[in-house]
């Protein structure tokens, strides 16, 4: 079932450049478990889109199957949504993006949807560098079927059932880096201050942007022996450095801290500022990013923040040299060569 959020809003809610309050970016009431990390991520998406003053109808939100893939109902109610089949969201987004390059494609998936049934499509959408934001709501378990371990569950981690997971974990960030991803980040559903700017940066990136968000499952995987519990992640998360995101056109005000180590101008003109607290990671170097991920895994900590960014990313439309006008807007007269050409073809076949 779907339940609508009551229409009543505080009259003094802040509006963005388009005159919209945050309500314009919300969806139906969530039916996930109270305290689910996924709801916080939905909230971060709403905030990021509102603060970026995106037109809701110019966003398409797509998902696969699972708890995470239900969330698109709970944000961006004015956007077209597509809840596809299990593990196959990447192919649907690929087709959609080929048809209309002008929309912003937001894919939402889970660890089962991405790292197991959808691993093949995930790998290939990364390789193609499709221009999309791909958020994994990663809780290390299958919630809808009552808590089985997923392929991202750490070896030795135990969910509510109590058995330690005997298999090695798939690290989606490392996988994406290896497959050639051009934007790789990891975050925690409990850290909106980090997550919101990362989502904004991902939305401004031209090409494939992965955000792997650890998002604890309060019902099945928030145990003391789980490495995807709120407590464990809070205790073991180590941020790469803080991230500020300055949208295009917005003046750089005093709210931005001085002393950024890097300022990156994104494809749409926005500025991404990175304040690095540690000198162990160069986020513009794929090998450094991979090494940092492995080092943290070795230490049993979770590296969060922006892990890798390719400033010269070329997306699939660049590679295929498709028309700058969306393909779905081409007219019949531009598509159909008419009978005259057939006369020549027929003549060549006699």
């Amino acid at each position, binding site marked *: *079932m*779907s339940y609508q959020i009551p229409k009543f809003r505080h009259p003094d809610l802040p509006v963005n450049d388009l005159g919209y309050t945050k309500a314009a970016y919300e969806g139906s009431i969530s039916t996930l478990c109270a305290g689910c990390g996924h709801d916080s991520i939905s909230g971060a998406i709403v905030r990021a889109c509102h603060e970026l003053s995106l*037109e*809701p*109808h*110019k966003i*398409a939100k*797509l998902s696969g199957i699972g708890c995470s893939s239900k969330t*698109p*109902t709970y944000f961006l109610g*004015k*956007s*077209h*949504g*597509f*809840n*596809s*089949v299990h593990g*196959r969201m*990447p*192919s*649907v*987004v*690929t*087709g*959609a*993006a*080929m*048809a*209309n390059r*002008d*929309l912003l494609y937001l894919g939402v998936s889970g660890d089962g949807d991405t790292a197991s049934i959808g691993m*093949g*499509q995930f*790998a*290939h959408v990364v390789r*193609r560098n499709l221009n999309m934001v791909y958020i994994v709501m990663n809780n290390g378990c299958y919630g809808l079927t009552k808590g089985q371990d997923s392929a991202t569950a750490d070896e030795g981690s135990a969910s509510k059932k109590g058995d330690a997971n005997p298999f090695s974990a798939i690290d989606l960030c490392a996988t994406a880096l290896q497959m050639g991803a051009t934007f790789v980040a990891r975050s925690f559903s409990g850290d909106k201050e980090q997550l919101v700017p990362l989502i904004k940066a991902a939305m401004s990136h031209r090409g494939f942007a992965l955000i792997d968000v650890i998002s604890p499952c309060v019902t099945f995987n928030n145990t003391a022996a789980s490495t995807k519990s709120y407590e464990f992640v809070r205790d073991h998360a180590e941020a790469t450095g803080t991230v500020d995101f300055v949208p295009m056109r917005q003046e750089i005000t005093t709210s931005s801290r001085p002393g950024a180590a890097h300022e990156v101008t994104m494809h749409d003109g926005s500025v991404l500022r990175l304040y690095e607290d540690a000198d162990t990671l160069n986020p513009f170097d794929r090998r450094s990013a991979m090494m940092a991920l492995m080092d943290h895994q070795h230490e049993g900590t979770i590296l969060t923040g922006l892990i890798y960014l390719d400033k010269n990313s070329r997306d*699939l*439309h660049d590679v*295929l*040299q*498709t*028309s*700058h006008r969306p*393909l*779905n807007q*081409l007219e*019949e007269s*531009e*598509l*159909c*060569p*008419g*009978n005259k*050409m*057939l006369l020549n*073809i*027929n003549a060549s*076949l*006699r």
Partner: protein
Amino acid sequence: MKPLQSVNDFVIKFANVNGTGSASANNLFAKALFRMGLPVSPKNIFPSNIQGLPTWYEVRVSEKGYLGRRGGVDIILSVNPQSMAQDIREIEPGGYFIYDNTKPLDLRLVRTDITIIGLPLTRICNEKYKDPRQRQLFKNVIYVGALAALLDMDFKVLTDLVADQFKGKEKLILPNITALELGHQYAKDNFECPLGIRVQAANQVGDKILLDGNTALGLGAIYGGATVAAWYPITPSTSVVDAFEKYARRVRIDPGTGRRNYAIVQAEDELAAIGMVIGASWNGARAFTATSGPGLSLMSEFLGLAYFAEIPTVLFDVQRAGPSTGMPTRTQQSDVLAAAYASHGDTKHVLLFPSTPKECFDLGALSFDLAERLQTPIIMLTDLDLGMNDNMSDPLVWDDSREYDRGKVLSAADLDNLERFGRYQDSDGDAICYRTYPGTHPGKGAYFTRGSSRDEQAVYTEKGEEYERNMLRLLQKWDTIKEYVPRPETTLCGKPTDMAVLYFGTSEESSREAVDYLSQEGIDLDAMRVRAFPFNQEVEDFIDQHERVFVIEQNRDAQLRTLLMAEFELGPDKLKSVLCFDGTPISARNIRKQILEHLPGNNVTPLHRKIRAGGVGEKA
């Protein structure tokens, strides 16, 4: 045994080794006959292999215009010792065996009831050419030259054709003509030409063309306005996307920017290919995929989504022999049931059955109109025989006054005038609802597409009555679809009869010929070619009007018959099966034989009486 005598009516088969360049020489032979005004139907029988295995090329010549396989071979042109024993056995009594006698024929293979003609092809080549590749390539051209003499072909037609074929590579023209002359001269000098079987120029092809179905289909997609093609390579469908790309590069480059007005994505598998088609179609582009049986199996889950969520989807299935990997380079019509009911749950899909390259083009283009109008998958079932062989066909025509039917799509202005948008609300009573493309309107028309149950506003629901209402609407839409899909083609024999044949796709030509044979024997049959599923009312009426209907198809399990029985709730007695599933196209002789097996005894008393008396033997 008197050697076979005929003019413009025979079957010749070339026995080659694949990867030796024989295909272009054999094409040259067939096309030369076509240019002499003779209906030809060349068929490649090739292995799933790149080099070194036996491959055959069978050409039927029929002045009467029978284009299906006749069955039997009158002449074998053999340059492959690997398959020689089998090839010699296949020749009709009185036929001809033409072979490379550089190495003498194994005496155990000799047949006294055929004419054996030796051409020292290897020897001629070794004497004439030094380069091993040239020796191999020109051997093929030399035997075409020899055949020209033996069959009395117009030599000038051949040399003109060579000139046409190598336009732009003029250096190659003269050596090829020389090779043709070598063979021609050798045959003239050593044999009494022509043979009992020969050709003479006729005027039986009119404005027809010689084209393979896959190329026609690729062109159909261009003309139908497809902009997104997503596919995974699989024989025998690969050349559909190849053709689409070839013509797209010609006509779909934006003159101003040089950018492409199309996108072709080679997917990681067939699941992704169909997912991309669904994503693109959902977003308002015309998109398609091409595949074969194994790909269709993989696409099943997504086809269920497209059916249930009502997303236009175009899928071209070039069928091959299944199940599983089956015989990947042999033909069959065996995906009928898998396509018709693809996916779990209650699903039914629209099928189109082309039988000629022209129809591949026409129905290929029409698929996009149908998919968008009907908001459901359109699956075209062609096959390897039609897709990969040059078939004689009516020329391709496009009506320039025709406009694409983009179906029920609401614009921003439409939405402004609408009080409330319901994606799955049947406003027109035809069970087809209005859709919107993403990004159309800032405040209206957004909805959630999903494979789970939902109400008319596209909101998730688990209410049984809402689900049931939606499923019933889809069934009602199935009735609407019957009005849109191509109607069958009926050929009445003009005499009172209560028997008929019913077939689809590439069984057409052989069926037509078999009906003629049987008619000469006093067995009159009406005929219907089904062109689409769901079956139109005409199909039901036609079956009703006949006591016995022979359903001719190229699979083991009588899949079309099963579909007819299921959809029309027919008992098992009325429809009799005529089947061929050995991987070769069904032949006219085979059809005739199977129909006769259903009708033992000669045809003295009216057949329907015999049938009513139960005098018809059933044989599977």
